[in-house]
Structures are given as structure tokens and as C-alpha cells.
């Protein structure tokens, strides 16, 4: 197991492992590193909004956790700056709903957001296929 981790950390610098010690047994969990997530966070948010129409921040984190079976956890620290940036750029718009003392902000895509989402998705899949070629080349080629 040790050697595996060493290899992985050398080759795939962007995948990290999290060790969880529970009742004297070491569990190794695969986690997606922050760096890797950061570059795709915008794409994730835009894509989810395009599917769901209208979402608020907490809903987005829950949705991501549900889809990934809890493997990917968006922290509020990463999510909200991204949401505000997307809004400032005019890719998403928001609508506030007052619930008692709380203000819930629902986000939805604007026409420019839809365009950006399509661009980002395309870019992402192209990137993934390129990186896959580099890191895990098909022996047939």
C-alpha cells in the first residue's frame, strides 16, 4: 500500500489521499484535491444551475455530495466567492427570498451563462481527454 501511495503522489500530483484512522484500522480515502476542484468549480456550478434552473448555495453543495456519494465536498469557502464572481461577470443572476430572519439567494443562469457553460464543458472534456492521453497513454498507439 505504501509503495502505491508513493507512486501515485509522484505521478498524479493532483490526487491526494486522506488517511482516516478509525478503531485502529487505517482507511485510505481518495479525495479530489483542492487545486483540481478549483479549476472546475465554475463549470460544476454552471452545469448544475442549467439542470436545476434555480438553486441556492447550500443546495448546490448538497447536490454535489449526493451525486458523488459524498466524495466531493464543496466548502462554503470555495463556493461563495465563485458564485459572487459569476454574478459579477453577469453569467448568473440572483433572487432573494426572505425566510423569517434569513435571506436565501437563489441563483439562475443568464443567457451569457448558458453560453459560458457550454464552452466550459467542451473545454473540460477536451482537457480531460488530453490529460488522459498524457498520463495513461493507450498502448495501442
Amino acid at each position, binding site marked *: 500500500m505504501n509503495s502505491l501511495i508513493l507512486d501515485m503522489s509522484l505521478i498524479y500530483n493532483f490526487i491526494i489521499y486522506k488517511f482516516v484512522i478509525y478503531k485502529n484500522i487505517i482507511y485510505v480515502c481518495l479525495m479530489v484535491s483542492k487545486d483540481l476542484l478549483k479549476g472546475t468549480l465554475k463549470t460544476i456550478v454552471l452545469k448544475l444551475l442549467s439542470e436545476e434552473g434555480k438553486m*441556492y*448555495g*447550500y443546495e448546490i453543495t448538497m447536490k454535489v455530495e449526493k451525486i458523488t456519494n459524498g466524495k466531493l465536498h464543496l466548502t*462554503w*469557502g470555495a463556493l*461563495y466567492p465563485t458564485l459572487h464572481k459569476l454574478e*459579477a461577470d453577469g453569467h448568473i443572476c440572483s433572487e432573494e427570498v426572505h*425566510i423569517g*430572519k*434569513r435571506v436565501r439567494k437563489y441563483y439562475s443562469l443568464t443567457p451569457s451563462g448558458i453560453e459560458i457553460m457550454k464552452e466550459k464543458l467542451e473545454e473540460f472534456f477536451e482537457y480531460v481527454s488530453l490529460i488522459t492521453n498524457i498520463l495513461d497513454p493507450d498502448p495501442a498507439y
Partner: protein
Amino acid sequence: MEELNNKQVELISREIDKRGLTYTLLKNELLDHFCCEVENQMEFGLNFKKAFQRILKSITRERIIEIQEETLLLINKKYRIMKKLMYVLGIIAPLLIITGTFWKVSHWPGAAILLTLGLASLALFFIPVFITVKIRDTRKKELKVNYPLYISGAIAGIAFLLGSLFKILHWPGAGIMAYGSLFIMVLLFIPQFIYHIIKDKENRDNNFLFLIALLVFLSIIILLFFLKG
């Protein structure tokens, strides 16, 4: 899902305030987010106090401040760079002037260069940037911008600094600038500033202190002028 009551929401709100979150738009959102998290924990059978304590652990002051800074930076890159530039210049320029004065008094070579750099950067970069940042900050708080105050202050400040610079370099026009800046300061800026102090209750102490320092400074400068004359 059980919803938190107003009292509980307020408790969380106060905890966020304590950690120095001032950007209201972000605060409202984070408040709702933390409330949802607490509610989620309560779903699993925790009581409010325990759930709240657990969530609170992840909300440190450093993190809140960092996220706030990051959000503001992402939204408004230009403004943030300007503000940083203001702080850097605000430290470097006075240091240059102080070192330059020391050099000049000691009759070492190079004093003029230090003083020129310090005074010019203060007059031509620091004051315009400072005024722009100030006006923007006021606008952001949705307060009325007192343009005569800022413009008279900026002109008086720039004229005074350039006047001193011209005097040091023995260029013509130093006297006119210095007198002009004093007139603007006394006749336009100070009345406006006193009016501003009366209106702005929030920063009254700081503004009052600044006014006193300015008046002392001005009286010393005027005294020096007359002594020389």
C-alpha cells in the same frame, strides 16, 4: 426538516458578526448556509446547541476574513489593487521623505532625489488614489459623497506637496502653490470638513483628531511663513 427559530438564527448571525464579516451580501448568504448546516445536523438527532457548536468549529475568524477578501477581490480586482497600492505608497512615500529630510539636514548627497520621489509620489499618486478609494467606499455604503470636501482636500494637498517640492528644487512657482494651498485649505477644506464631522457621527472621534492635527500643522506652517517674512 425542522426550521430554526428567529432566536437561533440571530445567535448564529451574531457569531458570524464576531468573526469580522462586514460584506453584507456575503454575510446573508453564509448565515443561511450555516443555518441549513445546523438544520441538517439536527436531522441526525443532535440538539441545536450541539449542532451549532459543531458547525462553529469550521468557522474561524481567519477563514471568514480570507473568504471575504477573496470574494471582494474576485468581484472587484481593480479596486482591490488600487487599495493595496494606496497602502504601499502610504508607507513608502513618508519613509522616503523622512530619510530625505535626514539626508538634507546632514548635507549628504542624494537628498533631493529622495525628497523628490517621496513628495511627487505622495502628491501625484497617493492623493488621487486615496480620494478615489474614499469616494468608492462612501458610495458602497450608499452614503452621499461630499465632492467639494474631497476635491478641495485633494487640490490643497497636491498643491502643498508640489509647492514644497518646488521649493526644495528651487523651481519657480513654489510660493504661489504654497499660499494657494493654504488659502484653499483654510477657506474651503476646513469649513467643509467641520460640516462633515458634524454629519458623520460614526467616525467623529477619528475625524476630530485629524482636524486638530491639521489645525496645529497649519498654524505651525503659517507661523513659519511669517517668521521668515
